[in-house]
């Protein structure tokens, strides 16, 4: 890993010291074990707590759209200061897609890009190296990872704990940033449609059965929606009562309706950061649905979301030669 923590903290301190920056969202050590928490930094002291490690799986772009637009009391000026955010390659695609959809504007954010050699899957890690209450440190170490806890150093092979989304990652370096930290990393070979083909390969009944089994596990906690950087409608279709597109009942029919609605609302928008799948308490392979839709959009329309901030939004653009053979 070329980027050192000193440089990161120094840059963060400089950014938060700027007059036009309100605060910075970065990663900081969590309260125990492998946990990493989002850090909202307003000063140099806060900047000193920031980290960037293979444990920083969270996509912080989510926090950009959670800010409420409050009424400004008469006589007061609106706070037009920017929000700074630290992003990995995948996270930067979320920022880019938000810019495309005007969820945020370029001049409302300071994007600090962190080239990322791949993060760990905390569940895989905990399986092999059980989590303890102690705080741990983790580092990139050559091709693999280095786990530091209780004064002990453990070398872990990359393939052992690398997150699924990182195995498939084609954009380890931020595609959009205002400030770039460290040197870019070398992209690796990926088998990007892994998992999708496996599902596509099943015949229709098998596939239905497979998804019936998966959706049956859903507890409708909506974590996948809440963590998604691109699910930010103030009035979500899933919450709507009139009309009630999706009923609250937790059963196969409503679970399926919910999961299909979620996936389709992300068609041509999902940037494959894998957050939904990471937070799902029922371990539903949401990534496979998202990747299937992403692949359809890419193959049929040659569009990939979140790579060009000046692109036209996919669902709202039309080319006369768009394929339509699948329209009945």
């Amino acid at each position: 890993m070329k980027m050192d923590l000193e440089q990161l903290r120094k840059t963060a301190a400089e950014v938060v010291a700027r007059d036009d920056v309100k605060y910075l969202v970065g990663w900081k050590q969590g309260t125990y074990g492998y946990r990493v928490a989002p850090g909202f930094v307003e000063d140099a002291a806060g900047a000193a707590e920031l980290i960037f490690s293979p444990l920083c799986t969270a996509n912080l772009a989510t926090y950009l759209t959670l800010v409420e637009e409050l009424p400004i009391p008469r006589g007061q000026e609106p706070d037009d200061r920017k929000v700074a955010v630290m992003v990995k390659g995948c996270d930067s695609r979320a920022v880019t897609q938000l810019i495309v959809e005007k969820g945020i504007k370029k001049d409302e954010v300071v994007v600090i890009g962190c080239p990322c050699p791949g993060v760990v899957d905390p569940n895989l890690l905990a399986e092999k190296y059980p989590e303890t209450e102690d705080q741990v440190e983790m580092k990139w170490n050559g091709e693999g990872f280095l786990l530091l806890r209780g004064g002990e150093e453990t070398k872990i092979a990359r393939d052992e704990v690398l997150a699924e989304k990182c195995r498939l990652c084609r954009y380890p370096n931020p595609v959009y940033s205002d400030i770039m930290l460290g040197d870019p990393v070398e992209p690796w070979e990926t088998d990007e449609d892994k998992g999708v083909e496996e599902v596509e390969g099943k015949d229709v009944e098998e596939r239905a059965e497979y998804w019936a089994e998966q959706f049956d596990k859903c507890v409708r906690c909506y974590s996948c929606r809440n963590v998604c950087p691109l699910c930010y409608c103030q009035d979500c279709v899933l919450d709507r009562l009139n009309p009630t597109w999706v009923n609250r009942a937790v059963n196969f029919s409503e679970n399926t309706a919910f999961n299909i609605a979620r996936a389709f609302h992300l068609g041509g928008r999902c940037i494959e950061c894998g957050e939904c799948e990471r937070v799902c308490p029922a371990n539903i392979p949401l990534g496979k649905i998202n990747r299937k839709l992403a692949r359809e959009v890419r193959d049929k329309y040659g569009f990939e979301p979140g790579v060009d901030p000046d692109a036209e939004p996919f669902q709202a653009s039309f080319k006369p030669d768009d394929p339509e053979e699948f329209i009945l």
Partner: protein
Amino acid sequence: MTEKPKVGVYVCHCGINISSTVDVEAVAEFAGKLPDVKVAKTYSYMCSDPGQTLIKKDIEEHGLNRVVVASCSPRMHEPTFRKAISEAGVNPYFLEMANIREQCSWVHEEIEEGTAKAKKLVSASLAKVRLLEALETTEVDAEPAALIIGAGIAGIQAALDIADAGFKVYLVEKTPSVGGRMAQLDKTFPTLDCSACILTPKMVDAASHPNIELLTYSEVEEVTGFIGNFDVKVRKKARYVDFDKCTGCGDCAAECRVKDRFPSEFDQGMGKRSAIYLPFPQAVPAKYTIDAENCLYLSKGKCGKSPKCQDVCGAGAINFDQEDEMVEFKVGAIIVATGFDPFDASRKPEYGYDDYPNVITGMEMERLVSASGPTGGKIKVNNGEEEIEPKEVALIKCVGSRDASVGNEYCSRVCCMYVAKQAHLLRDKLPDANIRIYYMDVRAFGKGFEEFYDRVRRENVRYIRGNPSEIFKRGNKLVVKVEDTLNSRPLEDEVDLVVLGVGLEPRADMREIMELLRLSQSPDKFFLEAHPKLRPVDTATDGIFLAGCAQGPKDIPDTVAQAKGAAASAMIPLARGKVTINAQVAIVNEATCRGCGYCVNICPYTAIEMITINRFGNEVEVARVNEALCKGCGSCSAGCFSDSIQPKSFRDSQILPQIAALGVMR
């Protein structure tokens, strides 16, 4: 909406169209018991004068403030009933039509089913009509000028009619001369008038008319705005010849270093032209144009010591520094008269068009037989070995028409007659030749067509019913392989010349016009008219009209008739000086609009723009609808993340109760 709804429900028999599968009396009785319904009646033809009077009288007597008409699709009669209730003092938008004909009686066979469905449809309309809002129409001024795209016979005729009526016309033509396809034809069926003789005077009139601004060698680049107020940008392509100085003498073309080297577009590639050229001798305007792609000086930067055209031009008209020029103007109406392309015979490889020089298309035949054509009207063909005068001639109809294998299921409507005409002209020039026509059917439907077809048959032209499967070479002859289907006899017919009666296709560049003007295509890929029977020259966009083969294959009289129709329609807003704006437009809820701009991209009418507003102290971007452009189609609403844009009269709050009343939603 403070007033309590008092609804009148009117159920139409539509003769037996509705009443044969819907018990209309039962529907009215059912409706009469529904909440807020004051009166429910039936009548044999609700759209007729007595039917309308019935509604008006009830409005007066019962103080109705909402009306449901259960009859046909609103497409035809919604305006009728709007007008009727507004004459009785009710806002015209307090009307809802239940379509119990197209969507009910015509699709059901059992009266029980039909009646049950009609009741549901009426309940649904009733649920909506109570929630409708009063809307007002507005008017804006219209620019008294028209744009006509394409200067073939359709464009020229429409331009002349509008200009004669006293309005300004901008006639835009892509090629260097007006005239279009008709100028290429030799004689016209069935009267055998010389095409050029009847067309060229009109071409000259169009060029000299004080109200017509002719923009040749120009293309429309951008059209924005709406009926009455279109803003148009036209690119006048550089001719590299000073338009005012050029006298059309032709010295330049005679001296061009690459003289007669390039296939002439006008002669279908059979004749040759220079890099500086006049498309044909009667071209209007008679001004030369340099083909920049082939001109040595413009393409290579060097033409001998100095370009010869420049040296010989007495008027000093050659200007290699000329650049494209943009012209901008405003018009109230647009006529699209972009014409057609002949079917590309290469797409039927079994006919060997690409392989044998003596397989030619009908368009090429027109030039070959023309006295002004590349052979001066002599019928000479190359049989692969030598130039001969053909003794055996076969003409094949329906090449690229009525042929699903090339995607053209339609009949091109002109081939039967032009093939007959060409057989007649060939008979004139080759009195001893054997001429036969291979056909599927003979469609001689127009005035004088059947008589002409009879005449040609009497001139010893054989009609053989059969669609050739293949053309190949044997010795110095072409063999047409075909089954004579009337005699069930396979034939291998040896001939010297094959004329492929190619059909008409939409122009290859029509996509550009479609995108420019946001027009639609019908399944045959020609431009789609607003209604196949009652609005054949209108498009779905108000103020844009169609004329000629751009809308579908047509012969010259039909084209001229349609051009005159389009001109008359286009003149309505111009003469009135005002246009009425649709009231059922989309409206933005600025309090919830997120400013994503999806609707701006989605809107097919470019009716939405982003504006900045102050929302509780925050400067935010929101969408705004230009009501003059909006058609109320609702596409924006479907694409909106936050349901912040909705068409009036079709708001969620209005259509969801309507759907709920059908009993299909929870």
